[in-house]
């Protein structure tokens, strides 16, 4: 009988036990499936549970390992994939009613790579409809219902990778895959108290993933430790002939100690006192994280982000790209099946936007990239808060509950920069809080190294939600 302690182990720890044959992938998969069966519905975490496929993949993994064919650290590890990623012969709903019966005949590249690495697919994880690319104001804007937070099911998981955050935090999977156009990995990581990595744009192939805003979409891991994100990213990164935007930049993620003496870190504080909706407890937890990084030897210099209307540029481009992506659903009336009451009107709302505006926004984005490159000429990483408040209620208007801007997210996503989200404490209602470390393009190894260093000195990433404690 596998207990909860094992289900909450990190990927690295599970991998060690599987490699040394102290843990059976078949038994581990059955234990996760049992937990999913008992608890997943409470959280609306799964769109589809792929029990038969999982059992088959687990049996294969066990047989291969038994014969001495160990593939690597993900071999036999059960995981969940956001339901935007195509899985051959298995429903891929994109979290939305118009596509609720959609079935593809080919796996997304990420799913294929994980299968080849020996990982076991437990199911498809819920998400906000169309990853929120047509906008959403309520937690309920998902085919699977509101993402319920395992720390308090009356609070939201964050989105759009809501199931990925909830399932990882509640020990329903070993790790999960999320996607981010703007905030969709970092937000559920902060609200659910897990570790998420938004990779550099192009680091991970998007082939077979739903397109939201094609010059913004990224795919990345959500896990219970930075070390796990490293192991997963290593498996899914790299060039792909099926995705022209996938970079052939070498994937050098081998664990190497970060040389803090050479690292120039910018501390970008946010003004909690003057920001509507910001919570003092979250600031306090962030200050604690900064103190911990300083104690570890990181030299932090307070810095300001480049002055630039990044939010306007990012918002406008995402809007235009998403309207093009989902054009079919406006034409055939599919948008009227969406839960968000305002999504069907997005064409009408954005009719003032013209072609010259979009090209101007693209050109301004190039200027912003140059400014970001200059900034990262001076600094290697930015240490800054993630969300300024804890997870809000699932019942309210999210715009009112989260009224503050996201200047770091705007620059990060407009410029395709990687960022790691790390839990750093608890705020109101004992809900998790987090901070982020953002870097220059393709600096994931440094971010992961800093994350691992921070987590070697803290235990926030090991805290478990009380919901299903056995």
């Amino acid at each position, binding site marked *: 009988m596998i207990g909860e302690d094992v289900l909450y182990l990190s990927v690295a720890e599970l991998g060690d036990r599987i490699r040394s044959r102290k843990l059976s992938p078949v038994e581990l998969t059955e234990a996760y499936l049992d937990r999913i069966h008992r608890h997943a519905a409470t959280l609306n975490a799964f769109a589809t549970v792929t029990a038969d496929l999982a059992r088959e993949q687990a049996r294969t993994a066990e047989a291969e390992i038994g014969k001495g064919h160990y593939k690597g650290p993900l071999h036999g590890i059960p995981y969940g994939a956001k339901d935007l990623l195509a899985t051959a012969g298995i429903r891929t709903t994109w979290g939305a009613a118009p596509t609720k019966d959609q079935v593809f005949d080919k796996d997304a590249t990420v799913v294929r790579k994980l299968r080849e690495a020996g990982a076991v697919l437990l199911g498809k994880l819920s998400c906000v409809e169309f990853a929120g690319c047509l906008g959403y104001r309520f937690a309920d804007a998902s085919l699977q219902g509101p993402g319920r937070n395992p720390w308090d099911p009356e609070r939201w998981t964050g989105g759009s990778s809501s199931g990925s955050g909830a399932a990882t935090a509640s020990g329903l999977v070993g790790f999960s895959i999320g996607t981010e156009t703007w905030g969709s990995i970092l937000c559920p990581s902060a609200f659910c108290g897990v570790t998420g990595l938004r990779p550099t744009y192009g680091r991970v192939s998007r082939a077979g993933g739903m397109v939201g805003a094609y010059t913004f979409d990224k795919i990345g891991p959500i896990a219970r430790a930075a070390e796990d994100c490293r192991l997963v990213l290593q498996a899914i990164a790299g060039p792909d002939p099926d995705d022209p935007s996938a970079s052939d930049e070498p994937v050098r993620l081998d664990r190497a100690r970060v040389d803090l003496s050479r690292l120039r870190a910018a501390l970008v504080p946010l003004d909690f006192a003057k920001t509507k909706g910001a919570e003092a407890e979250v600031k306090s937890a962030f200050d604690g994280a900064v103190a911990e990084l300083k104690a570890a030897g990181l030299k932090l210099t307070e810095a300001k982000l480049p002055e630039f209307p990044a939010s306007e540029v990012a918002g406008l481009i995402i809007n235009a790209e998403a309207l093009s992506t989902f054009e079919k659903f*406006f034409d055939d009336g599919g948008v009227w099946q969406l839960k968000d009451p305002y999504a069907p009107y997005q064409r009408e709302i954005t009719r003032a*936007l013209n072609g010259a505006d979009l090209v101007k926004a693209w050109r301004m984005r190039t200027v912003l990239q140059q400014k970001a490159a200059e900034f990262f000429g001076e600094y290697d990483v930015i240490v800054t808060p993630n969300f300024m408040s804890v997870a809000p209620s699932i019942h309210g208007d999210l715009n009112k509950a989260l009224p503050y801007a996201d200047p770091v997210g705007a620059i990060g996503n407009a410029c395709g920069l990687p960022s790691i989200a790390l839990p750093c404490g608890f705020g109101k209602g004992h809900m998790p809080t987090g901070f982020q470390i953002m870097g220059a393009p393709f600096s994931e190894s440094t971010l992961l190294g800093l994350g691992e260093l921070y987590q070697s000195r803290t235990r926030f990433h090991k805290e478990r939600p009380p919901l299903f404690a056995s």
Partner: protein
Amino acid sequence: MPQLSRRMKRRRFVTLVAMSSAALLTSPLSRAAAAVTRATAPAGRRAASPAIRKEIANQEKSLADQLKTIRGYTLPPGSPMAFVFKPLRARRGAKP
């Protein structure tokens, strides 16, 4: 209701309206317009409630603010383009 010419009798006006309506309904232009209406009136469309109208107005205002910022930003002459276009090489032996 349009203002009637004092000289036009009510019966004459009603006849004209009826004739023009009939002409419109049977004209090719009318059929084309009807086809466009069918194509652009998607299934399931609901009339916006006052609350939704209010929020649409808020979102329009938000977009207008975005556009004001974008349009007001000066890109100096010689500013870089945003290159996404690349010529596509023909593949040898590929059939058209």
